[in-house]
């Protein structure tokens, strides 16, 4: 073995390395970054077509529309989170790594969130104008989607880890994950509704932040366990 | 007894249809819940007894009959498998 006695990888370095790996893979195919945003843009435009152009009615429903479509976009993207790792065999290697699988999986999920949910929340105020969301609600929309998309990505990652070894796992992912997205949707959209009505969105945003912290703490454990199980089923 | 006559029970001052519909659906579903595992258990017991008898028959049967009974058992097993 020609490797000099270099120090073994610290947890932080392994976390960063895994984060980098998923990030580079994501950036290398820009379509994966742009598609969710296009999906969000197009589905938002369906609502005025479906519900009629009356601005009064649209702006009243804008928070709900924006949040539901953001949830669907996150769901659509979650399926692909572990799919490529499962196919090219790097999931097996991940399970063999000396560092805990939950932490490495968390690194992958955060990199995936940056590429999808984070971009979505940056772009969402732009699309909010399409459905006539009052301008004073835009910052709260951004904040709620920023926090909410992280929570949705973490929960979606649990579903993705559970269904990665199933061939047509896409639809199944939605069936098992949508009930878990309900609290996030409720807190997020109510925060934006309160902001649009000049009410007090802070308490709802605080609840959303609490959900984010809970998911950050608990979801990786479930993701780690689910990945090991999916490997056995593959 | 709160109700004085049978018709009052059925009518329940206008709400009878809803109450009896709810109870009917619940009783049907509950009985299905109780009935399906016992049917499954009986079906599997019959299969096991049949397979035991077939295995006993095939041990003292001639080789030619052997392959035939073996083949019958595997198709039978496949059929059970799809249901099982």
């Amino acid at each position, binding site marked *: *073995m*020609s*490797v000099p006695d*270099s*120090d*073994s*990888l610290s947890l932080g*370095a392994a976390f960063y*390395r*895994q984060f*980098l*790996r998923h990030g*580079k*893979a994501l950036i*290398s*195919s820009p379509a994966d970054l742009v598609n969710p945003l296009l999906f969000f843009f197009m589905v938002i435009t369906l609502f005025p077509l479906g519900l009629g152009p009356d601005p009064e009615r649209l702006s009243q429903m804008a928070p709900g529309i924006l949040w539901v479509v953001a949830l669907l976009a996150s769901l659509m993207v979650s399926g692909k989170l572990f799919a*490529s790792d499962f*196919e*090219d*065999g*790097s999931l*097996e*290697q*991940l*399970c*063999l*790594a*000396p560092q805990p699988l939950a932490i*490495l999986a968390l690194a992958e999920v955060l990199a995936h969130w940056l590429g999808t949910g984070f971009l979505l929340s940056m772009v969402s105020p732009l699309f909010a104008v399409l459905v006539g969301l009052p301008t004073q609600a835009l910052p709260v929309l951004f904040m709620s989607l920023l926090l909410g998309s992280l929570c949705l990505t973490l929960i979606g990652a649990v579903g993705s880890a559970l269904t990665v070894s199933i061939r047509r796992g896409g639809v199944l992912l939605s069936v098992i994950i949508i009930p878990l997205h309900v609290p996030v949707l409720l807190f997020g959209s109510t925060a934006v509704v309160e902001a649009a009505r000049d009410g007090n969105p802070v308490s709802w945003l605080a609840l959303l932040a609490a959900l984010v912290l809970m998911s950050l703490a608990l979801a990786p454990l479930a993701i780690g366990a689910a990945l*090991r*199980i999916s*490997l*056995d*089923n593959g | 007894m709160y109700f004085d006559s049978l018709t009052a029970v059925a009518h329940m001052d206008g709400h009878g249809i809803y109450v009896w519909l709810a109870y009917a659906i619940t009783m049907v579903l509950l009985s299905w819940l109780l009935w399906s595992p016992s049917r499954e258990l009986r079906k599997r017991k019959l299969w096991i007894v049949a397979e035991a008898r077939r295995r006993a028959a095939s041990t003292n049967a001639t080789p030619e009959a052997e392959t035939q009974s073996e083949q019958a058992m595997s198709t039978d097993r496949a059929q059970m498998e799809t249901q099982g």
Partner: protein
Amino acid sequence: MSLLDAKDVAIERGDRSLLRGISLSVEAGELWQLIGPNGVGKSSLIRALAGLARLGVDGDICRSAAALYIGHSSALKRALTPVDNLRCHPACDVTVGDEQIAQALQSVSLAGYESVPVGALSAGQQRRVALARLLLSDARLWFLDEPFTALDAMGCEWLEQQIAEHIQLGGAVLFTSHQQSRFGAQQHNLDLSLYVSA
């Protein structure tokens, strides 16, 4: 001091049991080849010994050293270059410098391909990038599942040399392969057909 101890290992697939009663102890400097017909469960066993499969595996397996597993799939991201793939490899247990990677790629005769995305390489070349990991890891226990497939004569010869070198340095290698024993007397064989459960 044995690097790998496996006692009474049984492998199941679905509720059908494939292998039973396998006991194995691999000492430092030993080379084991798992032999057996197709479908007897060679891959399942080597994955179980490497710690990849837990469901459907009974008996206790304990490894007292870091393990490196190379299976059929190359575990490489098609969009990344060989250098990025080797530097950020999920199971890589040591910090790997750029010159070590260059050395490894040079050793598998992929010198000019550092910046070509792995997706653009041929299957044989991708296999060699995956095998380059053997040079970049401190793991003393190697589990190689069909390592010689999709390798040309030169690749096989390189791999044999790496395995021999790893053995001398006190490592241990388990591998599955169809070809007959390539290392002659030096190699222990584990014939799985003896352990097939009825």
